[in-house]
């Protein structure tokens, strides 16, 4: 199987995440209000589809990676799996001990996969640095400021939607805070890219 170009993987992952967020926002209320059980099941599980696509993209990317890349993926996934296992156990036992409501436990579960991806990405970047590899390299894949920009737009959309739907102040604050943090990240990485390009042009 041919190697998967980084940009190809990243563009499709970002598109899948945009679709995921859109489905979560649009299908949540109809899923709760549907009276037909198969339709309710379909609407409730619809957000899983783009995430399965992301997992398939990731699996394909790892499968077609070279030996050094596979090593960094393995360490990243290993550490992420370990952390997620511990967090899941904590959540499970808190719910079993009635220290957390079932709805809270369900919300907790929704954050498991994003947490896994976050820890995997951070650990892989850390391991790769030992080999002189910058996984945040601006030359490979979608530029960071664009990724953060898309994230900021998505979270802004979710915040507006949450406000319109009258979601509680805490939830709205979390989403708006995430949108602001992502926008700040987009700005910081945009400035970094602009400065590095300006320095490269100025170099003899």
């Amino acid at each position, binding site marked *: 199987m041919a190697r998967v170009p980084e940009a190809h993987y990243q563009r499709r992952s970002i598109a899948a995440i945009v679709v995921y967020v859109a489905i979560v926002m649009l299908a949540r209320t109809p899923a709760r209000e549907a009276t037909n059980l198969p339709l309710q099941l379909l609407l409730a599980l619809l957000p899983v589809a783009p995430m399965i696509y992301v997992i398939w993209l990731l699996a394909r990317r790892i499968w077609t990676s*070279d030996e050094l890349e596979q090593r960094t993926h393995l360490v990243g996934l290993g550490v992420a799996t370990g952390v997620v296992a511990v967090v899941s156990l904590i959540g499970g036992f808190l719910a079993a001990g009635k220290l957390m409501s079932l709805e809270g436990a369900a919300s907790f579960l929704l954050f498991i996969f994003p947490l896994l991806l976050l820890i995997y990405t951070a650990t892989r970047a850390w391991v790769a640095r030992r080999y002189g590899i910058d996984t945040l390299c601006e030359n490979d894949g979608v530029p960071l400021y664009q990724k953060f920009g898309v994230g900021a737009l998505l979270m802004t959309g979710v915040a507006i939607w949450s406000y319109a739907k009258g979601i509680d102040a805490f939830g709205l604050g979390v989403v708006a805070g995430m949108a602001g943090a992502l926008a700040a990240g987009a700005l910081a990485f945009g400035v970094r890219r602009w400065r590095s390009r300006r320095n490269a042009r100025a170099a003899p």
Partner: protein
Amino acid sequence: MINRVRELRGDHAWSQADLAERLDVSRQTVNAIETGKYDPSLPLAFRIAKLFRQPIESIFEPGRIDS
């Protein structure tokens, strides 16, 4: 391990990306091998030797071996 990959690549006037494509690895992996930060597996070392038409021991030499 010490290697002559950068020198041999230079002799062929290939960029890291050119060599990476010929070896079916990433450019960053080529860079890690050249800078001695990563020692390739035996199959990859043989691929490198075959590509440069040199015996493997003339490209890769053991560095300091810690006891």
